[in-house]
């Protein structure tokens, strides 16, 4: 499915906007996620750059009308390149009172609220915690309000469809989508086609939904909208030419792992135990069995990683994915993979902690655990993806390092990356360098812990190979032979060797380089992981204001790439914004003895660009005083 969508021009006179943030909000049953993703597709086709983020309720299916049952979907689209789903919505679509209650505080004065008055009955108002209707009490005065009885409009539009009232009501998200399409000049075809396909077995439903969609659009065209509300246009962005798709982090990770395994010439055994927000990594991979992927839904996280270790011993690439609490459980077995020097990829889709914490919210608080959370001196490589699309490349890279260095690699993503989505310029698969694994086969002089002089990786000799029979285990091993050894000097040497091997990986990395800005200046903002978009936008704004601020984003957490220390020392100050209580900052301070300052946000939510800009400004101004 591919459609060319570059630079369409809309005939009607529309107000030109540079960028817009819309938040669709409604009850879990209102279909807000579908609405959002349809709007995303149409927006991508209109040539805007965009970023999206869903906001699921924590409950599986909360009672209708409650505030904790509100489901949201935010999309940010623009005529230039953007990297976050936006700090605050310009437009809020509130399908019921609870949705309004939960989201209205996020809207800036002057923002547009689209309200389905049909849902503003006494019962729903009470459930949302309103004593009086906000439609009447003046509390919406600061905003531009478009109040429509969408329920009634929808029912009318699908009258002839023969649907029962419940099913007919379900179409109201499509009515709303139609209206939004009109407001922002989007084409309806892709949604129409999608509806036809989705309800192929139930054409009545498809037709009704299409009717509602069209009716909403027509309403926009014809109705006299309140003063100050009109049709808008966000011109297409200048995107690099090529083929695009929308991609979420967990999709990208799954596909990156499959691609990496292809480049290595290996089959995948993915052992996992479901956990939010990593579960759909398992779901995505379970659908790819034809790619030589075996998914093993284990009885727990320990079994999941253990199976992956066993698979790597057997000559597949063992992979395991989970979130923070799962990594905690896996740490003993990860130590085994470190001691036996087997390749292993661990994906940690981080979420709010400690303990069960905020399972559906994002956070970056597993960095310490990733780098240092094991018994003994147990080094492994740690990578962090910066954007949803970057998850693809980092997954490939994790696999490459694991097999080249015979080491476990931890790939850190997070809930924000996992569920967030962005348009992704499809990579040229043929241009990716293969890294085919060669299993050792020659019995001549074979010893299971003999190593490549360069990478320090030990040989990978797998069961089934005649003449290479050998035993490995978690006890300390004698250099080369791998026999159990209690020799003191050997243990010291092997510990240093395991460390050296992991440190050596840094030689594969390009020297650390500034992502944005000059290589010296007043302040270096150092980020890692999913804060990439927000930091990058903030630094751009600051630089536009003339601030001498630069952005360094680390995708290799451990080992750190060469040159980081020099960069840190080239700036007047260093600020490390993290969605945790200050973890990378400790690593940097310990490694480079630079007085890097921590900026923390532990709220289960990404940084807003604005708060980053403010934090930097405040510090720069302070240091000027």
């Amino acid at each position: 499915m591919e459609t060319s969508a570059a630079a369409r021009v809309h005939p009607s006179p529309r107000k030109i906007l540079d960028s817009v943030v819309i938040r669709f909000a409604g009850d879990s049953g209102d279909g807000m996620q579908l609405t959002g993703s349809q709007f995303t597709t149409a927006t991508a086709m209109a040539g805007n750059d965009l970023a999206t983020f869903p906001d699921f309720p924590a409950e599986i299916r909360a009672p209708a009308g409650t505030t904790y049952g509100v489901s949201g979907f935010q999309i940010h689209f623009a005529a230039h390149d953007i990297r976050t789903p936006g700090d605050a919505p310009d437009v809020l679509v509130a399908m019921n009172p609870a949705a309004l209650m939960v989201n209205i505080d996020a809207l800036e004065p002057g923002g547009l609220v689209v309200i389905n008055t049909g849902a503003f009955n006494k019962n729903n108002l009470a459930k949302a915690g309103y004593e009086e209707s906000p439609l009447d009490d003046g509390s919406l005065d600061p905003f531009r309000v478009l109040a429509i009885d969408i329920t009634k409009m929808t029912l009318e539009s699908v009258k002839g469809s023969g649907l029962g009232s419940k099913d007919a009501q379900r179409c109201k998200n499509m009515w709303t989508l139609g209206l939004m399409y009109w407001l922002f000049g989007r084409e309806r075809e892709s949604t129409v086609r999608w509806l036809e396909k989705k309800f192929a077995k139930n054409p009545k439903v498809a037709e009704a939904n299409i009717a509602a969609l069209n009716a909403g659009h027509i309403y926009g065209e014809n109705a006299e909208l309140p003063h100050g509300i009109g049709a808008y246009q966000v011109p297409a962005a200048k995107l690099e030419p090529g083929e695009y798709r929308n991609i979420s982090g967990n999709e990208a990770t799954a596909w990156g792992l499959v691609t990496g395994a292809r480049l290595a010439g290996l089959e995948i055994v993915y052992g996992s135990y479901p956990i939010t927000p990593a579960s759909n990594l398992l779901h995505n991979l379970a659908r790819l069995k034809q790619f030589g992927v075996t998914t093993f839904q284990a009885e727990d996280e320990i079994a999941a990683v253990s199976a992956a270790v066993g698979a790597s011993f057997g000559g597949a690439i063992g992979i395991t994915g989970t979130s923070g609490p799962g990594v905690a459980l896996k740490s003993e077995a990860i130590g085994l993979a470190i001691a036996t020097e087997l390749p292993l990829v661990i994906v940690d889709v981080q979420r709010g902690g400690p303990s069960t914490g905020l399972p559906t919210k994002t956070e970056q608080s597993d960095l310490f655990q990733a780098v240092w959370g094991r018994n003994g001196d147990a080094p492994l490589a740690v990578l962090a993806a910066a954007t949803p699309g970057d998850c693809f490349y980092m997954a490939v890279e994790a696999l490459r390092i694991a097999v080249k260095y015979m080491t476990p690699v931890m790939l850190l993503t997070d809930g924000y990356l996992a569920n967030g989505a962005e348009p992704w310029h499809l990579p040229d698969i043929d241009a990716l360098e293969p890294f085919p694994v060669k299993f050792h086969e020659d019995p001549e002089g074979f010893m299971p812990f003999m190593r490549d002089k360069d990478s320090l990786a030990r040989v990978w000799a797998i069961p089934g190979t005649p003449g290479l029979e050998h035993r490995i285990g978690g006890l300390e091993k004698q250099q080369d032979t791998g026999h159990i050894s209690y020799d003191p000097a050997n243990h010291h040497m092997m510990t240093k060797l395991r460390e050296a091997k992991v440190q050596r990986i840094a030689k594969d990395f390009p020297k650390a380089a500034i992502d944005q800005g000059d290589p010296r200046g007043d302040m270096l903002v150092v980020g890692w992981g999913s804060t990439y978009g927000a930091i990058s936008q903030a630094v751009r704004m600051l630089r536009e204001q003339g601030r001498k601020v630069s952005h360094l984003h680390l995708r290799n957490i451990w080992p750190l790439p060469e040159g980081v220390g020099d960069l840190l020392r080239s700036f007047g100050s260093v600020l490390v914004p993290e969605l945790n209580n200050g973890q990378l900052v400790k690593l940097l301070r310990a490694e480079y003895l630079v007085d890097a300052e921590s900026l923390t946000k532990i709220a289960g939510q990404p940084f807003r660009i604005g708060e980053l800009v403010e934090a930097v400004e405040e510090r720069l101004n302070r240091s000027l005083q």
Partner: protein
Amino acid sequence: MSPNAPKKKYTRKDFSSDQEVRWCPGCGDYAILAAVQRILPDLGGTPENTVFISGIGCSSRFPYYMNTYGFHTIHGRAPAIATGLKLANPELDVWVITGDGDGLSIGGNHLLHVLRRNVDLQILLFNNQIYGLTKGQYSPTSQVGKVTPSSPLGSVDQPVVPARFALGACATFVARSYDTSKRLPETLTDARKHDGAAFIEILQNCPVFNDGVFDLITDRKTGPAYQLWLENGQPMRFGANGEKGLRMNPETLTLEVVTVGEDGITEADIVIHDETNLSLAWMLTDLPGVVALGVLYRQPGPVYNESVTKQRELAKERFGEPDIKALLRTGHTWTVV
């Protein structure tokens, strides 16, 4: 076994590694090692296609002494690691070596799940009713009252009955033997031939920390009175002169020990062993004053790793040749010019 496995006839020696065996003198593990090394060549195994996976414990040192592939892993996780290995390469003949602590204490959950999934493995549980390696604490199979360093006034934990646990986990093959038994190789061979997870509890003497717990059963003299060797299709007879047997009490649904020729009991009263009978197997797990040995239960069932392989093939049939480029283009794409 891979089809082009060499036809070379292996011997017991080919399966013995060059590592010095480091169990305590007199440990029952020696006899089990010898039995395993003896049967592998006869079963057509090759050192390269055979793998021993163990956890941690005295018994878990086992792989080091086999000239096959081996993995001495971490405490309790051998069944999970073996599952992963078997998924990576189903052609391998994979044996799991575990102890009563390794398999039934820390590793109980993995044992449960590997059994119910019916992964094609042989699982040898060395039951010495003690934690050997950590120097003698009571284990989940220790009897109540056992005095050990961690139970100075006697253990108060009701023990696990391994065979009962295995049946509760829906195992498809459950057997029992003991370290020095002449018939251990036969039972191991039965296990090897079973498709799916074959569970064998092997009573094993630990002369250092739990000497003689099984003496009544395993002693040459007293043994016959306590050993009921099960033979499929044969009446359940035992005793020094085979004079005893098991009779079903239909009221209590239990098996009772009777003496043929006494009180009018005849051979016809003795229950015939049926390996496929789950209820019978259950009753055999814990008998009054006699221990059932040999195969308690054997019933073919779908093998996990085979089902996984089939599904992977099905996926290939259904979704065609894997193509990463097409994968990246599933759903909706667009072009910017």
